[in-house]
């Protein structure tokens, strides 16, 4: 399962980042997520713009994921649905995953934990990934899986 990018449809509006943050907030409501939460959530995809090109850097949940193979602690793993996830308790923030990810899709959290953060396909947020559901141009499409 992964999110496929139709970059020809991306205009760099940034809603994917906004809704990714919402998906990872505790309220999962846009106003509260931005204004009303003690610790503001973070987006796990990273919109990059180099005009005229724009698209979010986002985990591709690679079959042969270099971040999983390279992880020195075993914290980066594949779940049963082959989604690439991070066991935050096991991670020591060595950032070998950042060395290995060819997509630049893993970045360092700005929170105190300094954990690497990446797309988790909204696995804890229920339903389809928020970026897919909220992209107004249909530039992000969920592929594979059920």
């Amino acid at each position, binding site marked *: 399962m992964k999110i496929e*990018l139709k970059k020809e449809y991306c205009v760099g509006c940034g809603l994917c980042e906004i809704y990714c943050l919402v998906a990872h907030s505790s309220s999962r409501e846009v106003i509260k997520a931005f204004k009303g939460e003690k610790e503001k959530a973070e987006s796990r995809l990273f919109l*990059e*713009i*180099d005009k005229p*090109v*724009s*698209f979010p*850097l986002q985990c*591709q949940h*690679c*079959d*042969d*994921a*270099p971040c999983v*193979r*390279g992880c*020195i*602690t*075993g914290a980066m793993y594949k779940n049963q649905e082959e989604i690439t996830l991070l066991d935050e*308790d*096991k991670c*020591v*923030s*060595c*950032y*070998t*995953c*950042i*060395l*290995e*990810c*060819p*997509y*630049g899709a*893993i*970045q*360092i959290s700005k929170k105190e934990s300094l954990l690497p953060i990446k797309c988790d396909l909204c696995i804890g947020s229920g339903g389809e990934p928020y970026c897919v559901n909220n992209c107004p141009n249909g530039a992000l499409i969920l592929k594979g899986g059920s």
Partner: protein
Amino acid sequence: MNDYLIIGNSAAATGAIEGIRTVDKKGDITVLSEEAHLCYSRPLISYFLAGKVDGEKIIYRGRDFYSKNKVNLHLGSRAIEVDPDKKVVTSEGGREYPYQKLLIATGSSPLALLLKGSGKKGQHFFYNLNDVYHLKEIIKEGDSAVVVGGGLIGLKAAEALSLKGLKVTVVEKTPYLLSSILNQASATILEERIRKSGIRVIVNNTVEEITGTDKVEGVILGSGERISCTTLVLAAGVKPNTSFLENSGIPVNRGILVNEKMETQREGVYAAGDVVEGWDPLSENKRVVPIWPAAYCQGLIAGKNMAGHPMESSGEFPRNSISFFGLNIITAGLLEVNSGEEEIINYNEDKNTYYRVLIKDNRLVGMIKMGDIKEAGVLTWMIKKKMPAGDLKEKLKSGSLNPVHLPESIRSILYGEEGVK
């Protein structure tokens, strides 16, 4: 008869077990482990010493890994001989293990220095979990420690000892720290960070003698300076563990020679990890690349081939992600600038970031990122896949390159079928 016998129990062995089990769910797998521990993350021993991870978290795949994968694990069992003709491995104590396919994944060992006064209590390597258990018992806040070697292992040991409240001195024989992965300019930035964190750094110098009667009391340097200490850590490099193969007929150079299937020159015998000398596509030479990700990948490839599923390695090149006192460093590929190679450097003193890439024949062949390691893997991929970088020089100069900046010809490969192969 073991269908699969694995000597060693670290990253390469784990990769091999997982590789075998993707192909063959049933065959017998036996692992001989010299150490009496479940596979643990060796790079985490400094975190373990510093108290940042515990004895549970350091275990690489969890306690049920061996039972889940139906592996017969023999802990504390050291292989002393391999007979590829009879297909038998003998362990210390004389027990024989017949096999169909063998993987040698015995890793490396720290180099023993021939120092005057060696062999005293308080003298340690910093290489395996037992080294750290021993260190944990003897060190006390306020003690003094000397670390011989300013490489990856020595500096991580120094950092951990310093975090435990010891007064630490690092003695490095080359002109600068981490000289195997940094250039002088970036090493200077690192050295400043390390000094500011309270560690004394001495370069261009060696430890000549260890003083004390039965316990370490200090060291004498080549310069004549005497430093008193109760703990001495020797971290002067590693060498592949191949001595037990002397009579095996398995060809060994610096490491065990393997082909792209991680197979040695003897039928049915494979090797992976720090113990092998494999192909480095950047230096275009056979070399030992003793890093965790390479060991895991080589093990995985060996395992699949052992189980009958053909898979080839495109080679491994040096690459590291490491941090010292919060300064993040990522490096990959070649380091030296030779004729015909172009260096692009971006140093921001205010932000304490340093960035350097090396271009050879229009291809990216090396990188150092320090302070800001964002999107480093894009460069690792460019290096690995030998992508043309000539048109990207302006972008590279800015210190940041991500998939948005790539020309469509390269980006389509990255996001295509062959992107991560």
